[in-house]
């Protein structure tokens, strides 16, 4: 959140640069740099369009780099483009760092501690847990139907006909399990009233908490000051 505020709120270069550096550093510390690079790749389409639009079409810019027919990319435009790109990438990577360094179990525990409620936490966790299981089951269904000579490698029309025998068992199987799973949950007192006991405890010293609040308040003040013109940043 702080990253978003600073990356977009501050005028000029310092905001996004700061965030970018901070994010890359924390990513490096967490050993998540390679995966972060993948996230960065995802921003490429947006980045390209920003660069193109700003470089070529920045309003009222006169300092052309080169003129080729009707096209005249400008330095002002290019600068603006780079700045915007940096903002987007900084923001994206800060989200990435968060996602990659927070184990889902810890995240859910914290949310529940803050009042999410057992059902909410369970739904998220169970949905995530269901993914590998569903993938596994789909694979088995495909195998079972192929063993009955279902053609999964032929022409598209034939493969389309095979959709129901492939999707049906996965869906029916999942639905059929619902009753048993619900009973299994109730057999473990899931519907008991009151707050659930949380076993996991995230280490959260007073100092961490203090620095979190300081960071948040500080960044808001900084952005406000920058917008008001009271502070001039590069």
């Amino acid at each position: 959140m702080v990253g978003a505020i600073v990356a977009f709120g501050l005028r000029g270069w310092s905001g996004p640069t700061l965030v970018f550096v901070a994010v890359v550093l924390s990513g490096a510390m967490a050993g998540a740099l390679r995966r972060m690079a993948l996230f960065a790749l995802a921003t490429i389409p947006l980045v390209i369009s920003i660069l193109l639009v700003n470089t070529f079409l920045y309003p009222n810019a006169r300092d052309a780099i080169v003129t080729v027919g009707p096209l005249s990319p400008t330095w002002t435009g290019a600068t603006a483009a780079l700045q915007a790109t940096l903002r987007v990438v900084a923001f994206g990577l800060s989200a990435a760092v968060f996602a990659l360094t927070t184990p889902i179990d810890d995240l859910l525990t914290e949310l529940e501690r803050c009042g999410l409620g057992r059902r909410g936490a369970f739904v998220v966790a169970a949905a995530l847990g269901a993914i590998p299981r569903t993938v596994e089951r789909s694979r088995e269904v495909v195998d079972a139907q192929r063993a009955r000579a279902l053609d999964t490698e032929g022409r598209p029309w034939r493969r389309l006909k095979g959709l129901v025998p492939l999707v049906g068992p996965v869906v029916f199987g999942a639905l059929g399990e619902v009753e048993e799973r619900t009973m299994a949950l109730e057999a473990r007192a899931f519907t008991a009233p009151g707050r659930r006991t949380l076993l996991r405890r995230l280490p959260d010293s007073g100092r961490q908490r203090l620095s979190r609040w300081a960071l948040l308040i500080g960044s808001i003040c900084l952005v406000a000051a920058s917008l008001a013109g009271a502070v001039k940043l590069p």
Partner: protein
Amino acid sequence: MTAPGSTPGVPLAAGSAVGGPAAAAPSTTDSAVLGPAARVPSIEFEAVSFAYPDGTRALSEVSLRIEPGESVAIVGQNGSGKSTLVRHLNGLLRPTVGRVLLDGRDVRPIHVARLSGLVGLAFQDPDRQLFAGRVAAEVEFGPRNLRIRGRELAERVRAALEEVGLAADAGTNPYDLGYSRRKLLALASILAMRTPVLILDEPTTGQDARGVARVREAVARASGEGRTVIAISHDMRFVAESFRRVVVMRQGRVVLDGAPDGVFGGAAWAELRAANLEPPLPAVAGARLGLGSTPTDAALVAALKRGAG
């Protein structure tokens, strides 16, 4: 303990199709069309090893030959490689090392859809395949994929349902049947394909006594027709009584292979127990009484009679 099965089945004579259209003379040279009228092929695993993409080794240098018409049971603890092994026969899995041969021909280039016309595999969990709204439609699916139509199709469906005792439920929704009858339905849907090789993965788990009886009958009938029948099972009694050859697997290897007499005989018990299996009770009783190898009730009774008479 590596003697092959006692009575290898005889390949069907040309023209006596295994339930396929009687008119077509099977072409043994045409590798492209291995239709239902083909003769029963021999099966060979040639030093087959298989590892899953994540590295788990499921099979280690398995070499096994199954003659046409044999009835073979594959036993072993969960994770010993039984299911992995049989999935190589219809192409769902391909060996990482080694070859799988049907009638001496490597099956690697043949698509699963084609191999399924030769090798029918009934899965352990029926719910992995049920999608039709009616029992009859479910059974039709397999043969229909094999291009069977019309009267031939109707006849096959009727016969298959009859065989598993579901003839009266042809119009029922499969999910209105209990688990064990759904399992019989899954069996019927493979029987209707009339494949020369029939593989059953745990056909008796979850079945009551009547269901087990139906499965036995189906196995006996298929064997009687000269088809190769392979079953994976935990039920040692079913294995000893319905199959002429038992293959014991442990950690991806074949550790015992022979007739029930040999595999359940006293000399093999150490190996059986190492594979986490127990011999069936008649074998244990026979050994205790010094009667030799008696893997089935009938064998024990016969041995007692010989002793008494």
